[in-house]
């Protein structure tokens, strides 16, 4: 009887491979669906950014409507910030595919353009908001730094919730091998070992964790 049953070993193996492969395919499909979702969001954000940039260019030719430019810039920054949070959630649960890492890079570049555009607007207008750039480590394996960065993120989230449109919050991964980001780090004299760093209005650098109340002291309103 055993002779007729011993095929069960490899038959079970074949079926397992099929079921397992289906599971992996499901995983790839799920992660690709999430990547596509992020990519779609990115496309709209990219269009919005180009629109904001073009508005600045057009206004610089004649009457520059600072109010509208600032309003658009802040609204765009807020949207990108929310999308980045969603991207982060997806990234945490991404196992099989690496596409979201590329999306993250794209968002970092987008936010860098946003930062430059914001600087441009600031040069031409008397802006009412303060610009907060948060440079953090993306490829972080140190548990201590990871938790410190989590608290930094939460601190800035609290600040943004409190200050609303008075703060333009731009988080940027600073260790993702993006040349433009590296140049900005050089410009502000920020080293990799200093990360995470909060840069307020391009002048104040904060690399030590502070209480929310202490942080608020850097803000005029």
């Amino acid at each position, binding site marked *: 009887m055993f002779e007729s*049953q011993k095929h069960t070993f490899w038959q079970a193996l074949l079926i397992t491979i099929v079921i397992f492969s289906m599971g992996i395919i499901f995983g790839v499909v799920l992660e690709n669906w999430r990547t596509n979702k992020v990519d779609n969001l990115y496309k709209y954000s990219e269009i919005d950014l180009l629109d904001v940039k073009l508005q600045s260019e057009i206004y610089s030719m004649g009457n520059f409507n600072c109010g509208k430019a600032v309003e658009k810039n802040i609204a765009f920054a807020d949207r990108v910030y929310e999308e980045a949070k969603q991207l982060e959630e997806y990234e*945490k*649960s991404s196992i099989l595919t690496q596409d979201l890492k590329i999306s993250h890079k794209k968002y970092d570049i987008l936010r860098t353009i946003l930062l430059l555009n914001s600087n441009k607007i600031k040069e031409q207008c008397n802006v009412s908001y303060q610009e907060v750039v948060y440079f953090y480590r993306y490829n972080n394996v140190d548990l201590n730094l990871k938790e410190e960065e989590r608290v930094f993120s939460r601190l800035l989230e609290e600040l943004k919730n409190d200050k609303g449109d008075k703060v333009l919050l731009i988080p940027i991964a600073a260790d993702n091998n993006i040349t433009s980001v590296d140049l900005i780090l050089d410009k502000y004299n920020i080293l990799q070992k200093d990360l995470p760093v909060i840069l307020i209005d391009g002048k104040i650098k904060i690399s030590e964790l502070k209480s929310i109340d202490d942080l608020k002291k850097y803000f005029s309103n």
Partner: protein
Amino acid sequence: MEFLPYVYLTYMFISIYMLTFFLILYFRNRNKFFDYPKTDKKYSVSFVVPAYNEGKSIEESIKHIFNIGYPYLKEVIVVNDCSTDNTREVVESLLKKYPKLKLINNPKNLGNAARAQNVGLKQATGELVAVVDGDSFPAVGSINKMAGYFDDPKVGAVTCPVLARNQEHFWEKLQAIEYQAISFGRKLLEYVDAIYVTPGPLALYRRSALLGIGGFDENNITQDIEATWHLTAEGWNRKMCLATHVTSNVPSKLKPWFIQRRRWNIGGLQCISKYKKDIGRKGMLGLFIIPFFVINLFLGLFGLGIFFYLSFTRVLSKYLYTRYSITAGTPLVTLNDFYITPSFLNYLGVILFFVGLIYILMILSIMNEKILRKENILNIPFYLILYLIIYPFIMINAIWHYALKKQVWR
């Protein structure tokens, strides 16, 4: 930890494989699942009942043996291993009522069941020897249904489902489910000649086969596992008769249960150590049974290691996060923390859990149909989760005891 998802995937692969393996075996053999060979031969059967402090159950156990209804019962040998309770008096009071009952009183305690069983085995004269624990109760007709397997001269041992006699408390109910699952699995393993234990509550041996391997290994604390491995190594087939059963008292509380399982695991380790040279040899012993035990052990320990690693990093993360949060004055918990984006591994894990649940339900429904009582369905998820959590700890405790040579039977 980048490799963790691959570890999870490996565990999932093995789980799916085992599940598929058992399901194929079941569906291929379902029509003859509860069948047993009938015989015209008149095998004489000697019962050997090792007893140490079984005063509360031994009378009932003996009554069950004599009520089995097997016409060629030759003798029932109770080996009282110097009990300190009233076991001796209880058995003596039954000697008149049952003339085929024999009592051997060991002058000193031999320390384990194997030695007591060997004392009885030496006295046994039947062609077949049924070993029954002093707290176990064979069902009516059990030997009649099991004896037919011995018409095949290659069969050395036959076992049957062991069911939990006491099913009142929560822990007993979980064991009742477990015992049914084990019985189901053991029957399936019969089809690939991979039965790895003929449990002590009721096992029927060909006496010549048992004597041929020198009886029970007195240095092994799970002599029933060892005897089965030894018989397998010597080329004897083992069979499982699902058409009958034996009931046995199961531990009611966690601690005695833990000790019992630790003993089983230590016995398993002793067997692995004794037969490791046979890996890849001696038929299914070296090709399936020993690798199965070794892989189980490795997966359990590795899983426990991963569990400890994750627990440690989780606690450390929480500590660091709390420390930094206090410095920053940020909330420790926000609504966002409850928002989880599940990975595909989470989905697969949930699916696998429910498939496991359905598998157990299927087992219960198959077994209940013929021989078993109703079970509380709600206990099944508890059974799956609790056993999964506790078993690796038992394993590590067993290894600790094994390493320290604390291999006590009781």
